[in-house]
C-alpha cells in the first residue's frame, strides 16, 4: 500500500517533468528541422551568379518611329517601342479610361516617345504580339497575347482578357540621349 501511494505521488510529480522534457524535446526538434529545411528551400532561389546578370545596356538610336526592338534582360524579352504621335495621344487619352490596373502614361514612360516594357504577359508569361509589323495588336492597338487572349493598350496597360496587371515597366535609366540601361 505504502509502496503504491509512493509510486502514485512520484508519477504525478514525474509526469509534469516528463511532459516538460517531452515538449521541449519536440520543440527543439521542430525548430532544428525548420532551420535545416530553410537552407534547402532557399537553395532553390536565384543564385548569386544569376542575380549578377541583372542589367543590360542598349542603344535606341536606330529605332524608327512606329517600330521597336526587343532586347534580352534576365532571360526575358524587353520591348522598346518608338511610339507614333497618335499612339502617345491615345495612351494619354486612355489615362481616364476604365483601367483594371490604373496608371498614367506619364508614369509608365520616362520619355513619351519610347515605351519600355517587360514583354511578358502578366497572365501566365507568354510573350505578347505587336512588336513586329503585321502582328496583331489587339482591340486597343498595343499588344495582344495569343495564349489566352489578353489585350494591352498603347501604354501596355491591360484592357481586356485574363491578365490581371499591366505589362511591367522595368527599372531603367537614360545614360545618354540614345543609350538606355535596364536593371
Amino acid at each position, binding site marked *: 500500500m505504502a509502496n503504491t501511494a509512493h509510486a502514485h505521488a512520484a508519477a504525478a510529480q514525474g509526469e509534469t517533468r516528463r511532459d516538460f522534457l517531452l515538449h521541449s524535446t519536440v520543440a527543439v526538434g521542430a525548430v532544428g528541422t525548420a532551420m535545416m529545411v530553410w537552407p534547402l528551400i532557399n537553395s*532553390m532561389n536565384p543564385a548569386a551568379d544569376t542575380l549578377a546578370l541583372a542589367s543590360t545596356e542598349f542603344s535606341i538610336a536606330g529605332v524608327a518611329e512606329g517600330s521597336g526592338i526587343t532586347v534580352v534582360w534576365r*532571360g*526575358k524579352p524587353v520591348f522598346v517601342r518608338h511610339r507614333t504621335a497618335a499612339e502617345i495621344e491615345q495612351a494619354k487619352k486612355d489615362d481616364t479610361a476604365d483601367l483594371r490596373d490604373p496608371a498614367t502614361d506619364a508614369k509608365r514612360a520616362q520619355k513619351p516617345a519610347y515605351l519600355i516594357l517587360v514583354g511578358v504577359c502578366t497572365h501566365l508569361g*507568354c510573350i505578347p504580339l505587336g512588336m513586329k509589323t503585321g502582328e496583331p495588336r489587339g482591340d486597343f492597338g498595343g499588344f495582344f497575347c495569343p495564349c*489566352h487572349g489578353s489585350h494591352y493598350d498603347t501604354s501596355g496597360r491591360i484592357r481586356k482578357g485574363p491578365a*490581371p496587371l499591366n505589362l511591367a515597366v522595368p527599372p531603367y535609366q537614360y545614360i545618354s540621349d540614345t543609350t538606355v540601361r535596364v536593371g
Partner: protein
Amino acid sequence: MSTEKSRLMKAWEWHEQRLPIGHFLDHSLGSKYPAPKNLNYWWNFGSLALFMLVTMIITGVFLAMNYTAHVTLAFSSVERIMRDVNNGWLIRYMHANGASFFFIVVYIHIFRGLYYGSYKPPREVLWWMGVVIYLLMMATAFMGYVLPWGQMSFWGATVITNLFSAIPAVGDAIVTLLWGGFSVDNPTLNRFFALHYLLPFVIVGVVFIHIWALHIPGSNNPLGIDAAPADKIPFFPYYVAKDVFGLGVFLMAYFAVVFWLPNAMGHPLNYVPANPMVTPPHIVPEWYYLPFYAILRAIPDKLLGVVAMFGSILILFVLPWLDRHPVRSATFRPIFKIFFWIFLANAVLLGYCGSQAAEGWPLIASRIGTFWYFFHFIVLLPLLSWIETPKPLPASISQPVLSPAE
C-alpha cells in the same frame, strides 16, 4: 531427385523463416488473397497501371544515362538518343508514349471507380491514395515533358509555373523560387530533372499504401455489394491469369503506337528547340491535361481560373461525402448512370475545347462544360443521394445465377 527437391524446399523454408517474402506475396497477390469472382475486364486496369509505372521507371533510367540536363545540350542529347544511341529511339518512344498509355490506363481505372462507386465506404482512404498518385503523375509527366527542351517544353513550363503567380501576396516569390531565376532557364531544367527522377519512386511508395488500403476491405465488384467469402476466388491463379491476358492485349495497342504512330500523341513543335524570345502562336499541353486546361481558360479571371483548375481535381478528395447514396454500383442506379455518361462526355468535350484556341464556340462550350463539371459534383451527386430510388440489390453475388426467377 527427391532429396534434391527437399533440400531446395528446406533452403526456401529457412529463408522464409527469416524473410517471409513468399508468404507476403502469396497474401498480397497470390492464392491467399481472395477476390470477388465477378470482376469484369475494367478491373484489369489496376495491374496495367502498375505495369506502366515499372515500364516508365525502367525506360526512364536508361534514358537518363544518355540525357544531359542543360539548356544548351538537352535538346541535342535527346536527338542523339533518337539517332545514335543503340535502340535509343525505342527506349524514348516507349517512354514518351508510355506516359500517354499510363494516363489512358489510369483514366479508365478512375472512371471504373466512379461508375462502380469504389470511392464509397469503406474505401475512402484507398480512393484518396489514388487521387494522390494521380496528382503526382501529373507533376511527374509535366516535368518530364520539359526535359527535351523543345518549344512546347519551354512554353508549357512557363505557363504552368506562372499558375502559381496567381496566389495572392506570395505568388511571385513562389514562382521565382520554382524557377531559380527570373524566367524558366537552366536552374529550372536542372531541378525538374532531379524531381522527374525522384517522383516516380514517391509514386511507388504511395502505390504500396494504395494496395495496402485495398487489402483491408478487398476489391469492390461490378454489383457493388459486399462479397461473401463463398463468392470469392483466390487471386492466384484466377486473376493473375486474367491480368496477364489483359496485359497481352494492352501491349499490342501500346507497341502498335510505339512502332507505327510514335509521334501521333506528341506535338510537332517540340521538335523545335526552345526559344525564350518567341512564344508559339498556340500553346497546348499534353492531351491528358486538356480538360483542366479548358477549365483554366474558361474563367476570365486569373486567380479564379487557377482555383477552378486545381479545384476540379481536388474535389475528388471529398467525392465520398458528396455522393452519399448507399448503393455503390451504377448498375442499380438508373439516374446516376445517365449522369455518369453525361459527365464522361462532358470531360471529353472539355478536353476537345482545351485543344482549341480560347475563342468562339470552344470558349463558350468550355464555360458550359466547366459549369457542368462542378454542377455534377456539387449539386447533382448530393441531390441524387437524397432522391434516387435504386433498383433492388441481389442478396449475394451468386444469387441472381442460382435463383434467376426471383
